[in-house]
């Protein structure tokens, strides 16, 4: 396995609006547009979990989207990170006390980076992605390490038989 980390240079994101008020939501989209242009960092908004490395979630978890969020997360190939954008995604935010809000995204899937703000600004989202990149890289290293160990184990088993 190569040790070159392309992952950091080409993070593709999947954005899902859990139960956001659209505030953070549109700021995520604004990141793609000329003034912020996150494609500078190789970021593409894929819209397809199978292609994505970073799952960006805005808004908190409610009854119906719980399964959707988990489904999307599971469909992403490893290594992957989750960035919770905005305070609703972190804790449920101002809607924390609503009867249909179960809380932040971490109630359902592990969250790696929390971006505060109501609404989170494009700059904060960029910062969040940057923070996510190093985590992504760590996970990749761990993954290849694990694969290496597995391989070694297989070899060892092969030799013994």
């Amino acid at each position: 396995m190569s040790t070159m980390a392309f992952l950091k240079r080409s993070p593709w994101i999947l954005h899902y609006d859990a139960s956001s008020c659209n505030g953070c939501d549109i700021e995520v989209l604004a990141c793609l547009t000329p003034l912020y242009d996150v494609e500078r960092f190789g970021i593409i908004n894929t819209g397809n979990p199978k292609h994505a490395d970073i799952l960006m979630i805005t808004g908190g978890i409610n009854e119906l989207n719980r399964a959707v969020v988990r489904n999307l997360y599971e469909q992403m190939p490893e290594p992957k990170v989750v960035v919770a954008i905005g305070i609703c995604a972190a804790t449920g935010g101002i809607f924390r006390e609503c009867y249909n809000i179960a809380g932040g995204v971490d109630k359902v899937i592990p969250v790696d980076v929390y971006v505060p703000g109501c609404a989170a600004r494009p700059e904060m989202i960029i910062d969040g992605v940057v923070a996510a990149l190093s985590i992504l890289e760590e996970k990749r290293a761990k993954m290849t390490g694990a694969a290496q160990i597995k391989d070694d184990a297989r070899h060892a088993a092969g030799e013994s038989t």
Partner: protein
Amino acid sequence: MPERIVVPFGPQHPVLPEPIHLDLVLEDETVVEAIPSIGYIHRGLERLIEKREFTEYVYVAERICGICSFMHALCYSQGIEEIMKIEVPDRARYLRTIWSECSRLHSHLLWLGLFADGMGFENLFMRSWQLRESVLDVLEDTTGGRVIQGTCKIGGVRRDIGAEKLAEMHRALDPFEEQCRNLGDVFLNDETVKYRLQDLGVISKDEAYALGAAGPTARGSGVAIDHRETGYAAYGDLGFKPVVETAGDCYARCAVRVKEVYASIDLIRRAISEMPEGPLDVKVKGAPDGEYFSRVEQPRGEVVHYLRGNGTKHLARARIRTSTLANIPPLVKMLPGAQLADVPVVVLSIDPCISCTER
């Protein structure tokens, strides 16, 4: 015979930034049946009135929707003011109008961008959102927030716009309008855009009215309903005529919004030049007791806040009916017969704001 294809469209879908689900039944690529299902964003914030005092609830109302945030705050505040018989100072009314129209501008530009994206016109999406950023800059400079303004409160507004800033805004309007008109020309005259929009998702005037369509969806079909005509905030002073198109297709709905962008710029221009001096707010004493159906014209159409106070700091009921909810029945009627490629275009043509709809 074509066979039937069943596709789950959404809730996560790249073209729809918000979760809405459609059970699409297709024959080849023609939609024969499309049943929406919503509820992915339902938070239940109407019940937050039990937890928040009626003055604090403005912040919740703002976050019903992050795009038309100011208008929700305005609608809520006007409702409470109506119940409590509060007379809002003139300058506050004008400032509210300016921020309302700025919100409308940013909402429409945002929508135009998403609409272009739905048509697969990436550059146009980029251009629309680039223009939108200049509106957001103005909003940030005058309110401190890009998308959630937080300046409207019961009895007036929380911030003023200084004379200097107003003059600067006024100066910026002309070049901005020119840029918007260039953008609008693409939407209105480009052949590929026309090809994608014309004769698509047609709703006749009678149908639109009978289905209770709101906002540009209704006006695109020739139904001249625009609540700004009732003259809330400063619209009464500034004078206002709704933008109406008659074709009832996606192109007409797009045209309404493009022309409303121009109209909004004009309204802001006049509001700035006629801006009265005076206080920003009046003191709110006591608690609301009574009920009122407060109605405001959002970028997406008429929004209704039904507010009912019982003389305590907590309202007895806040019921919010947003324009997208009213536009879902027309949407259900529009989809059959469209092509799969047109589904996002048709869905976007009502400018769905799901977080408003589901509260």
